[in-house]
């Protein structure tokens, strides 16, 4: 095996920043896993599709509003619209999942394993529905009207060239402006959410439910509402992740959720599942480790590195890096 340490050390700052950008996206998706786990002790395996639908909402908005011909303020307005579209789409999918795939099972006290299978099933259905979008629009006779969004989006799945992505230099390090936007906005969202959960009344209700649902209900916390709220927050954050992911990588497809979802889940477990700050830390560590590792070993090793890291850390710290749950997280 050829270990390329020279490349690694020569490009360490750039590799780290790109890694942090990927890690920030993992972290935003990881929040959805970790919040739902905190309250339900359940892995929402369909959360990957919540993210994937967000990427399509972003892509469609960009196409519909003609971002390719826009610039300046107009382009910024389109991007903001695309951000809201992605957040709205992901939130709707997340709430729909809760309503259809989970609530009926939770109401009947079904074993966690059943809910897990339901989640995996929902994940496949959502992904395949997106994959079959040309057939579905055909049923309604909308092929012609929607052909741009269905067919072109199917072939290219891309918004490459819509955005200029200027790079700038600081102390000889070349930095992508998009990476900076991704890292800053992801971290800002996480800090906001962290403060919401720690300080607000509803946030405390979520923590109380995570720790002891029965006693929380004695305080007047409606468990169903609280669960809904965690799905909603997870969906909104996945929408932001989808927006940032598209800014960075330009392309999506109906299967994009799977690997991103598994990586984000890994990040959540790495940081300590149920722990919001753990999700951020886990995401960033994973993103950087992956990017460093692939620089040394070659890009085909990227995913291997991510999962070997997961196994190693769990062997040493089975509860993850920060290891406490949502309920026990201190203010």
């Amino acid at each position: 095996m050829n270990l390329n340490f020279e490349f690694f050390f020569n490009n360490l700052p750039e590799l780290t920043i790109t890694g942090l950008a990927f890690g920030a996206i993992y972290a935003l998706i990881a929040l959805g896993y970790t919040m739902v786990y905190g309250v339900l002790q359940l892995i929402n395996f369909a959360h990957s599709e919540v993210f994937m639908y967000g990427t399509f909402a972003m892509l469609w908005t960009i196409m519909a509003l003609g971002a390719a011909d826009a610039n300046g303020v107009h382009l910024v307005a389109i991007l903001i619209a695309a951000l809201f579209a992605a957040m709205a789409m992901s939130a709707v999918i997340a709430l729909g999942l809760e309503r259809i795939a989970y609530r009926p099972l939770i109401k009947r006290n079904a074993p966690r394993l059943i809910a897990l299978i339901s989640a995996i099933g929902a994940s496949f259905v959502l992904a395949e529905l997106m994959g079959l979008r040309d057939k579905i629009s055909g049923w309604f006779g909308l092929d012609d009207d929607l052909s741009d969004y269905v067919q072109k989006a199917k072939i290219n799945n891309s918004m490459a060239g819509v955005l200029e992505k200027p790079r700038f230099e600081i102390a000889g390090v070349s930095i992508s402006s998009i990476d900076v936007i991704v890292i800053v906005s992801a971290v800002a969202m996480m800090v906001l959410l962290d403060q919401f959960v720690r300080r607000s009344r509803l946030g405390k209700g979520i923590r109380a439910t995570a720790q002891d649902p029965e006693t929380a209900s004695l305080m007047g916390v409606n468990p169903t509402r609280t669960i809904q709220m965690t799905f909603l927050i997870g969906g909104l954050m996945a929408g932001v992740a989808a927006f940032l992911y598209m800014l960075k990588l330009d392309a999506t497809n109906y299967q994009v959720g799977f690997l991103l979802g598994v990586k984000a889940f890994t990040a959540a477990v790495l940081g300590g599942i149920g722990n919001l700050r753990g999700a951020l830390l886990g995401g960033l560590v994973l993103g950087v480790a992956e990017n460093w590792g692939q620089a040394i070993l070659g890009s085909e090793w990227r995913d291997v590195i991510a999962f070997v890291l997961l196994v190693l850390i769990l062997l040493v710290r089975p509860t993850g890096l920060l290891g406490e749950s949502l309920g026990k997280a201190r203010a």
Partner: protein
Amino acid sequence: MLLEVEGLCVNYGHIEAIRDISFSVPEGTVTTLIGANGAGKTTTLKTISGLRKIRAGSIKFEGKDISAVEPYDRVKLGIGQSPEGRRCFIGMTVRENLEMGAFTRKDRKTAAYRDDLDRVLGLFPRLQERIDQIAGTMSGGEQQMLAMGRALMSRPRLLLLDEPSMGLAPKLIQQIFTIITEINSQGTTVLLVEQNAAQALKRSHDAHILETGEIVRSGKGKDLAVDPAVKAAYLGGDV
């Protein structure tokens, strides 16, 4: 009557935990349910707060049947509970636990809320000292005080206390009972469940004795405390 329980039956699966019990709690009193482990005391309280489903019978609060009201809505009606085993939110600070008690209140920014907080901290000066401490790091007695303070923060008309003396040192038990009397004298009606029958009977207006899911004796607390049969069964070496 603040609370009227009539013909209440509650099952755990196929096991009858409570069989046809009826009692009432007059406004302004301390009413106690005593009985051995497994007699159905905790189940009765949990059914009043809505955590257990009723199989038959009814629970009326201020004259209205609340059987169909969800537990999280019963708090708003004025039923507060300090559950068995305290169940403080151990990852939260004392202050956050008290805030959770006031979760349903809309006046959290007003003077009325701060007055209530001051009242609770006045009843439990230990909580004032430890206001920013994580609940899980406190002693059992302190957690008991927190669980009671938390329940009071919802401004309940009826306070349900499930075994507040459990696992506490005798001196602390004395202190908890004194505070219960004080809470009652400030106008809160109390329904108390206790294994520490001697203390509980002494301090309650009415008392009911539960055995295997049924009420076997009812009377004034003072009378039951000196009743020979009750003494033999429940007050043993306890006094």
